[in-house]
């Protein structure tokens, strides 16, 4: 085989290999450049948002004070405050018991109808 033939043969083989590498590279680039969101990405986001909302509401109800029912005298207190108040009141058990009974009766008593006339 002459030198010219060797050069031609190796050139053709090299050209073929480069062409194949280019094909594979183009396919790889096309594959890697597509980043579709995960199948459950939307669902997971909605669920975590709902969880965050529920947690926020629960945290608010546990950590803040608010009036729940003005007529019946029901209020919401932070847990720490409620525990301190309970500890103070129950230092005198008979008074605390009487107060509890009165508040319970007030809480279940029928509400007076509000007249707008």
């Amino acid at each position, binding site marked *: *085989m002459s030198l010219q*033939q*060797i050069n*031609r*043969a*190796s*050139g*053709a*083989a090299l*050209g*073929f*290999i480069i*062409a*194949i590498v280019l*094909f*594979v590279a183009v*396919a*790889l680039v096309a*594959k890697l450049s*597509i980043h*579709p969101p995960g*199948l459950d990405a939307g669902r997971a986001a909605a669920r975590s948002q709902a969880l965050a909302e529920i947690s926020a509401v629960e945290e608010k109800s546990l950590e803040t004070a608010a009036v729940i029912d003005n007529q019946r005298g029901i209020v919401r207190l932070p847990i720490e405050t409620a525990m301190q108040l309970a500890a103070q009141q129950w230092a005198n058990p008979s008074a605390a018991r009487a107060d509890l009974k009165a508040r319970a009766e007030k809480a279940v008593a029928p509400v007076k109808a509000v007249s707008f006339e």
Partner: protein
Amino acid sequence: MNPADNNSVCSAKIDASCRVPLLALFGGAALWLVLGLVFAIIASLTFHQPEILAHCPFLTYGHAAAIANDLLVYGFAIPAALGVMLWIFARLSQAELVLPIVPVAAAHFWHLGVLVGVGAVLTGHSSGYTWLEFPRASAMLLGVAFVLVAVSAVATFGQRQERELYPSHWFLLAALLWFPWIYSTANLFLVTTCPVRGVAQPVINWWFSNNLIFVWLALVGLGVAFYFLPKIVGQPLKSRFYALFAFWTLIVFGTWVGIPAGAPVPAWLPAISSVASLLLVIPLTAVAVILCRTLCGAKVASLGGTYCYMRAGSFLFLLSGLMLCVTGCPQISRVVEFTWFGQAQVQLQILGFAALILIGAIYDILPRVMGTELPFKKFVNAQFYLSLLGVALFVIPLAVAGVKQGRAGYDPAAAKLWLMISTTGLLFLLLGALLLLVNIFAMTLKWKLGLVKMVYAAVTAPLETKEVKS
């Protein structure tokens, strides 16, 4: 020594350089062809004799049909085509095969890849994509093996004496580039840990299937036929310009085909595919004109030899192409899509067109590269007629079954009788494939025995006294 003697000596050297690679490729291909047809028969039997092999979980229809198809294409058609291409490139270049050890190693890699793939599909580890059932490990082996054989073929092509390119060159070089492109792309997008999703999956799968079965096999089959037919009839291909036209129109229109008209994908995809199917009439007409003008008036005895294989294979390509064309017509596709008609076209393309042309080429090449006659010459004619009968009995009933099924509202009972006939066709094809296997294996055995005898004679030959030192 006159130029004719010089030329024949040169041809003998070229053929000898191809011997071992071609034996490795053709031997495995013939074995896989037989096994593929056995699995095809098993798959076909499940439609009318479901109790046979029902107790064997490895041989359910899903396994057997996938293995049969893969063995026919990856096991037989591709290695056989690679072997024929190596020889044609060496002959057209008037040069010995470059790096002959590379295709030998690649042939073994290829057959190992097929074996791994078949084992994976049998044990239920198929990828699930049509024509891409083999798992990643197998696909890697096949891809590397193909590129290695192609490097040897292209290097041989590069050192050709005549710089002019023949029509066979265009088709076969395109086939060498086509397969790595489609196979790597389809595997990267589908058979990976992170495949593309949703509608892109079937679209890529349809694109790959069509490019492999229709375009790639057409490039190989026509390339081989355009080499052998002019040589056999003793006149040049008529004409080179028609061949160039057929080549480009086949590549331009053929690649878009494959998406069924009723596929649940964006409407523009099946619409383009249908238009491309109809436009396939153009390359088919060009091929028909080439064949008519080249073969008309040829005084060649048609007794089942290579000429018959090539001529029948080319005619069946036109028929298969026409079947693909008509599926692009909405009135017809409404009836035949998702029926056995599609399978009939695919099997006609593989077993009718590609297999006939490749087997014809193998029968022509083998005696040349081995430097001896075929052990059973009569098998060549016998296999031709068996194959022709087998293809007719396999494909026509499938096509009829498809039409009947489509008209009967996809009633599976409408196809039962025709499926039974198609199994008979497969039996004839298997018988023919066995003849090829026997011929190749007998030839290989004879050659290996000759080698052993030669080595034994060399070892046991008495030393000349002048070489013995006291």
